[in-house]
């Protein structure tokens, strides 16, 4: 029994000695690992600094991008302003041409106004047609001329006195149901002269003239 215990003790001692003899090798590997870890940590720190630099560069790129986008927006705003100014200029040019045309049309004929020194001459052309059943062409002509004369008198009255107008529209369910316009004129006309009478294809036209004097009003 004693021998067996001694044997066990010897074996455990030999295993310890063997372990002790192997320890320097593991210590060397630990050193390598430590150095590798140090290198890795150095690399990590370098990576960290690089990442920091990359992030700062990214930030700078982002700021540059923002500035570029803001400049682009400003440029687009300037472009829209330029286009609106160009549109306004073109519309002003068109208005100017229209006004020039209006002046060309209106300028030659200034509106005549009755004054103490100038008389006012009014010319109208009245139209009339003959009735369907007339006894002779002469009767047709006479009746058409009468109608045309009345029309010319009406036109003179409208020019001198003005027209009274009344309009009425009836709208139901967003649709025009009835549209009515009444116009009327009442006047007394004298000393109107017939300048010319023409009768062509059943239509009689009477050109009439009246000269208004300031003393008459």
């Amino acid at each position, binding site marked *: 029994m004693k021998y067996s215990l001694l044997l066990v003790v010897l074996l455990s001692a030999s295993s310890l000695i063997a372990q002790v003899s192997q320890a320097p090798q593991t210590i060397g590997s630990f050193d390598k690992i430590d150095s590798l870890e140090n290198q890795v940590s150095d690399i990590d720190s370098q990576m960290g600094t690089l990442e920091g630099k990359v992030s700062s560069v990214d930030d700078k790129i982002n700021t540059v991008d923002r500035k570029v986008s803001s400049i682009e927006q400003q440029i687009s705003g300037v472009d829209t302003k330029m286009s609106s100014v160009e549109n306004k200029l073109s519309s002003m040019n068109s208005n100017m041409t229209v006004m020039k045309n209006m002046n060309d049309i209106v300028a030659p004929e200034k509106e005549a106004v009755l004054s103490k020194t100038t008389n006012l001459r009014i010319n109208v052309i009245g139209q009339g*047609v003959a*009735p369907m059943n007339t006894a002779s062409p002469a009767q047709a002509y*006479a009746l058409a001329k009468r109608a045309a004369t009345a029309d010319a008198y009406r036109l003179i009255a409208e020019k001198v006195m003005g027209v009274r107008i009344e309009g009425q529209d009836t709208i139901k369910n967003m649709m025009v149901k009835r*549209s*009515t316009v009444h116009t009327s004129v*009442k006047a007394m*006309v*004298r000393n109107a002269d017939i300048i010319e009478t023409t009768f062509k294809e059943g239509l009689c036209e009477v050109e009439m003239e009246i000269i208004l004097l300031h003393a008459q009003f």
Partner: protein
Amino acid sequence: MRSRNGNYSFTRTVLIFLLSSLALDAKEYLISYRYVVKDATLYNESLSVSSSMTKCVGKPTKSLNLISYGDDDLKQSILKNPELFVDYVHKLGLQIESKDITKNFVNSSTTILTLKTTCFKVDFNENLVSIAPLN
């Protein structure tokens, strides 16, 4: 106005007689005239002539001579000379009343020209009738 033979009173008497006889033929008539034009066509025409029951006041102006067709009928004389009379009436001046109605974009018009009842001095001679409004 003394005559050659010096018979002044006789000449004057004759002249007064002649003038008074002419003046006796002068009568006063009330005339009104109206015509209606509807849609550019003569629609209706009316002429009213009647002798005046009362003495008219005013002086004759702008006379018109019409051919007389006897019987001292003024209306007949006017109706036989319609163009002359209508042109004359236009010169005197007509009351114009015009109404247009445009219903659903379809237009119809009515124009009425009226010579309001006016007193005329009318002289009947042999072949002529002279009319002049009293203003």
